[in-house]
């Protein structure tokens, strides 16, 4: 069964009089309940694609659907969960009240213990009353993910959720995200810059090329779940990482001479 689907999707922006195609005739199809990572260099249009699936933007041409339904329908039924690089917690609300926001938007009262069980799932049971300013960057992102999961969404859209975290915190967060995701397995799209993160989390990684050569290559990641720190040391993990890195730099004329 189809999860996320994009058919010949284009999105053109006009910046200072010049037309820029963030997406140009892009196709995508992911299975329902799968975890897909979208990787590519800055400006390749991966965040634009995520915003389109979140209903925050409309394509200039082409069509998108989630589980065979128009995006707008899922949005109206409050079945989309999102988290961004900016945790976007409201600073005047406690961690629990920030999670409650999702229920308020959906116009549904949280069931008894719903908020505290969400906090427990992200390991923040003791911090329900804390304000965002009192939480570390990693804890804020945990709250943001709990909020994204609050209304039991059919689809989870994550745009660099751990992009601002240090590498050690990021690895821990990846493991936690996998554990939470395995619970219900919503159809998930993760935008990331990190090859290791993409390989660790995803069933399939899509490499988006940069302009002018826009190639999108999909690679399946056949690693067993649940993946752990031990997975990071396997040959299969490293092989997948190497393959992705090669693809990311494939359109560079002289990779050896590149000065990063």
């Amino acid at each position, binding site marked *: 069964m189809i999860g996320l689907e994009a058919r010949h999707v284009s999105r053109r922006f006009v910046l200072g009089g010049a037309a820029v195609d963030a997406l140009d005739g892009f196709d995508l199809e992911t299975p329902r309940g799968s975890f897909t990572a979208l990787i590519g260099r800055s400006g390749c249009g991966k965040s634009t694609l995520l*915003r389109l699936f*979140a*209903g*925050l933007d409309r394509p200039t041409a082409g069509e998108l659907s989630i589980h065979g339904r128009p995006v707008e329908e899922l*949005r*109206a*039924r*409050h*079945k*989309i*969960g*999102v988290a*961004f*690089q*900016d*945790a*976007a*917690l*409201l*600073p*005047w609300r406690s961690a629990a009240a920030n999670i409650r*926001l*999702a229920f*308020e*938007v*959906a116009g549904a009262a949280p069931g008894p213990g719903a908020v505290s069980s969400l906090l427990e799932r992200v390991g923040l049971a003791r911090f329900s009353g804390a*304000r*965002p*300013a009192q939480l*570390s*960057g*990693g804890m*804020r992102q945990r709250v943001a993910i709990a*909020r994204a999961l609050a*209304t039991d969404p059919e689809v989870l*859209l994550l745009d660099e959720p751990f*992009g*601002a*975290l*240090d590498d050690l*915190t990021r690895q821990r967060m990846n493991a936690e995200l996998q554990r939470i995701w395995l619970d219900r397995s919503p159809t998930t799209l993760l935008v990331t810059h990190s090859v290791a993160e993409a390989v660790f989390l995803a069933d399939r990684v899509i490499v988006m090329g940069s302009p002018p050569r826009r190639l999108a290559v999909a690679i399946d990641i056949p690693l067993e779940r649940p993946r752990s720190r031990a997975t990071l040391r396997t040959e299969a993990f490293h092989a997948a990482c190497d393959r992705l890195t090669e693809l990311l730099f494939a359109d560079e004329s002289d990779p050896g001479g590149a000065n990063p």
Partner: protein
Amino acid sequence: MSALVWSALVRAVPAPAAVLHQLWADRATLTANGAVTLREAAVGYLWGNGAALVMGGAFVRVPWIERSLLRIAVAGYCLPLVVVGPILVVLFSGDGAKVALAALSVFFTTLLCALQGLKAAPPASVDVVRSLGGGSQTIFWRVRVPGALPAVCAGLRIGAPTALLGAVIGEYFGANDGLGAALVQAQSAYEVARTWAIALALAVLAGVLYGALALATAPAARWSMDDAVAVGLPADPAAGERGPILRSSGFLLWSAAWGIGLWYLAIFAFHLDHYFVKTPLDVARYFFGPGGGANRTELAGALGTTLVDTGVGLAAGMGLAIAAAALLALRPGVEAVVMPAVVFLRSIPIVAMTPLIALVFGRGLLAVTVVVSLVVFFPTLVIVRSGLQAAPRAAGDLVLAMGGNASLVMRKVRAGYALPWLFTAARNAVPAALGGAILAEWLATGAGAGNLLVVAASESRFDTLWAGSVVLVLLSGGVYAGLGMVERAAQGGGRPSYRRAALLSAPGRSG
């Protein structure tokens, strides 16, 4: 009732052609009066800004000066100009009072802008210069001063029409020439077309001054990294590190102690005549000495009227401004058309238009409410709108993706982010509203504290004048400090303002 108002409006609002005709007929006297007012404003502008910049530099270079004098500066910021007007008339001869009012009206804004700017230098830039072997001189001139330019220019820009306003208010308190004097004369003679013509000339002059300064300072505004400075918002004295000073409950006590000290010092240093200039002890005696009961009753009655006048206009002006800001934020297309006009209208010295407003809306509470709410409306609209835009885009996107709409984003996200800005707006509005009410009482209704002060000055009851001014200054400062405390309580017990917390949690800086 409405028919009465309507017929009054028709009589007091002339045809545009009649105003233009009058403008042309009076061109000689208008030019002469305009030149007088402009000269007073310009001299005051130079004095006020010069003093503010020198003091700002001294504050940053010598910390103990800042610690002791900053509270005076903050207290001065909430000083309604109209209250000190009669006192300045007593103190200075000739054009001195007008120049002093113009100088005072620009001094505090520029000082706070300069301080904000001088301290805004990123610590990293300071460290870089220091590690290169630069001393505090080098850091001040190479890093802090260039970094302060955008904020200082914003202050200089806001100051241009404000200096004009100060000069005009000074003229209301007694002058033969100048646009202010001419406006009051035309109003009391009920020369409708002439009143409008003078007010129009005044508005155009203010707009031209603001526009000229905006053009001159535009290059500096462009390199500002602070949005508030770029749009020309007044510096918020309670923002950032200066907050604790304002919020400490000892603010009023300390300011009062310093104020009393400086008061005595000025009397002693300038050999001021005790007949005109009363001491703090005289003021205390006025309230609690022989006859104090009658004095207290008189002042309390006048103050009661003034509080009603201020409160009604403040509520109306802020309420309308908040509603307008929310509407504009929900309709970006309308906003793009309306905001430039609002920014321009904000530069018009509305308090200076009080005689015109009295002419149109009569001599009752309506005229006072119109003056006060107009004074409050434009600054509040601009500040609250900036607050509504302060919400990070991700927070709004999140609510939208979860199935919310624009009005839900407004209620759940943007309103919350705008709240600290609303407090800033309120703090700025209170002294302005009080000043507007006092001037309107004097020029329009002939009641309340505004009237009492001016009558006292003209009848040489100088103890009443000083006592009334002291009470009004305390009132203004008290409300100002009180709002700071309410704000702190609203943000949950002394934690850093979430305006700053939000900045710290911006992408790339969290964790």
